[in-house]
């Protein structure tokens, strides 16, 4: 009898548990389904541009050199990534391009060869396929290709486009272009106008002096640091500015928040109303968020790292104010009593009764924030105009050089991880080794 009652009770309790076990995932799934529809994820598949992803992936590890002939003037230019700053001086070209007056022979490697012929004509020897010849006939592009075009060819009246693994060739009335792809980040170390371009590191270190005015190492460093395509010096400054924003913002906020936190802590606030007021101010500062502070401050201070630092400072004063005052509310009264009983003055009471207790909590919080603020500073920089964040977002928005974007991303990730390790290291060191309670 008791057993049947127990059976029934257990059955009921398990029925309830099953209900909960199913209800929670069901609610979550239902919500995700709603989000799925609200965000139009089914439509995403159509909108997604996988060719973009491909471009991006290819750009990350390779670059292309453009060989362009202006079909009106017949002038041939060779430019890395087609950029002004990556253009070979007139009459010069990499060794796989042979300039022979009206003819230009471009060796794409592996038996693929493009020849620019006079009068806007070209021939393209494709390994394993044959030769494609094309020219401009009046206003129209004509090419000797079979009726059904292979899928790597696109031909219209105004344009011929041939995409082969060795490279890409396009012909329009105005110009003929050949792209040759190569691994690596182009001109990462030296631009074309540097005497050190294409010189091996060993030759740099031990070889003959290349520039009479400068020693090889000093010259190489100067040319690398001032690289006009990669702007290494500017990038280094940008990283430094970002870290500076995080550093000033975080520690500035900690310094401002500490005395205010006393006014907002239950056990230290002289007035209840004052405590309430400061709590609301902290909530406000956090609620407004660094992003909006940045916008508000940029009127007064203009673009630059100081504005970003102040924005972080304002938000974090709110966060720290809250965290610190909670830490202060949890202090151990005994230590304060101990110091008070010796006749210590109020300031001494805080110095010895309170500060040593809260320092570990405070310090570890501040250091945690330092790391996360490095990330925030990247984002804020993108908005105020400062630091690596601006370079990164601008490079991304203009969607041009994904290798630069990759470079910045790698740098940002390394920067954040470095700050993470640094703050972890400081946390371990200071909190264990801190005996003065500084």
């Amino acid at each position, binding site marked *: 009898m008791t057993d049947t009652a127990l059976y029934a009770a257990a059955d009921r309790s398990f029925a309830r548990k099953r209900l909960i076990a199913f209800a929670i995932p069901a609610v979550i799934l239902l919500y995700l389904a709603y989000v799925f529809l609200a965000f139009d994820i089914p439509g995403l598949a159509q909108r997604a541009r996988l060719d973009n992803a491909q471009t991006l992936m290819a750009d990350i590890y390779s670059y292309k050199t453009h060989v362009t002939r202006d079909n009106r003037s017949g002038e041939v230019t060779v430019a890395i990534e087609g950029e002004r700053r990556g253009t070979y001086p007139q009459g010069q070209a990499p060794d796989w391009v042979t300039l022979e007056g009206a003819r230009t022979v471009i060796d794409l490697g592996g038996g693929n060869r493009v020849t620019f012929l006079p009068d806007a004509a070209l021939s393209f020897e494709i390994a394993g396929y044959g030769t494609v010849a094309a020219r401009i006939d009046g206003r129209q592009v004509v090419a000797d290709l079979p009726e059904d075009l292979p899928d790597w060819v696109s031909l219209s009246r105004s344009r011929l486009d041939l995409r082969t693994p060795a490279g890409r060739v396009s012909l329009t009335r105005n110009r003929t272009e050949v792209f040759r792809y190569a691994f690596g980040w182009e001109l990462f170390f030296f631009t074309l106008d540097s005497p050190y371009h294409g010189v091996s590191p060993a030759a740099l270190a031990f070889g003959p002096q290349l520039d009479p005015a400068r020693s090889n190492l000093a010259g190489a460093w100067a040319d690398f640091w001032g690289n006009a395509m990669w702007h290494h010096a500017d990038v280094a400054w940008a990283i430094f500015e970002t870290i500076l924003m995080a550093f000033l913002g975080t520690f500035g906020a900690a310094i401002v928040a500490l005395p205010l936190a006393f006014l907002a802590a239950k056990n230290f606030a002289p007035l209840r109303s004052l405590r309430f007021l400061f709590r609301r101010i902290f909530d406000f500062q956090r609620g407004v968020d660094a992003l909006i502070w940045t916008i508000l401050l940029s009127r007064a201070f203009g673009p630059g790292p100081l504005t970003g630092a102040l924005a972080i400072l304002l938000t974090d004063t709110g966060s720290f104010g809250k965290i610190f005052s909670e830490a202060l509310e949890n202090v151990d009264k*005994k*230590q304060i*009593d*101990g*110091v*008070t*009983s*010796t*006749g*210590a*003055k109020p*300031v*001494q009471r805080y*110095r*010895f*009764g309170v500060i*040593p*207790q809260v*320092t*570990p909590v405070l310090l570890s919080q501040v250091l945690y924030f330092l790391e996360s603020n490095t990330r925030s500073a990247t984002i804020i920089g993108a908005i105020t105009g400062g630091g690596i964040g601006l370079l990164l977002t601008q490079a991304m928005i203009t969607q041009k050089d994904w290798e630069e974007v990759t470079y910045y991303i790698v740098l940002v990730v390394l920067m954040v991880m470095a700050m993470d390790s640094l703050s972890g290291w400081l946390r371990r060191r200071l909190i264990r080794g*801190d*005996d*003065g*309670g500084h």
Partner: protein
Amino acid sequence: MLVLESLTKRFGANLAVDRATFKLDRPIMLGIIGRSGAGKSTLLRMMNRLTDASDGSLMFGGRDVLSLKGAEKRAWQSQCAMIFQQFNLVPRMDVVSNVLHGTLNRRSTFATLFNLFPSDDIHRAIDILDRLGIAQHAPKRAEALSGGQQQRVAIARALMQDPKIILADEPIASLDPMNAQVVMEALRRIHEEDGRTVIANLHTLDTARRYCDRVIGMRDGRIVFDGTPAQLTTGVARDIYGADETFSEEATSTEIRDPQGAAGRMHAPA
């Protein structure tokens, strides 16, 4: 010398200390006993001015202690050292720094904020630690010490204040019997050698009997006994503790029986 007149503390409706009155006319070692909640701590905290009294007066050397304010109040606190059950040290600071806190009242705020204590003080602190047998722990953090050692650091801090009176609020309640004995002996020695008044809250009868010259018993905030240890019979104790017939002294004992049979009072009652 020290005169309490109807010293009273009210917490809301609760009378924690109810018209406590007694008088010390020379430095003695005074024990205050009573069960938990009897008002012992509150009494001591009022004497040190950690807690404000509700009523009554406390005179020391003719001065009205309760009316002192600000710097004068703190000066009084520095003359009237306090030792706590939980030691109340700053655990993350080293032992010497903790002892040096005893000089805070005398030194300028600014210098102490940066931990700049004169080296004379540092030497004296080490001497005091040495006297209490824990000089070798000087550079350690307070939290790294055992309970008994921490309590001796607290005593050292009190001595550093060079006080007229030492108030000790259940100084041995969190200690094991061995450490309890060391600490009580240290307090006794300070009383005897330096001639300082020591007032100690104790919750065990035998400790009071063994170390004190005079014992005060409190119950529900009132002083219900005031006499020599010899007058403190089991019957009186039963009254103080509000216990019934089954009360046994051993229940409150923490004493270590001396194996040589030399246990007992260290000295004759005053």
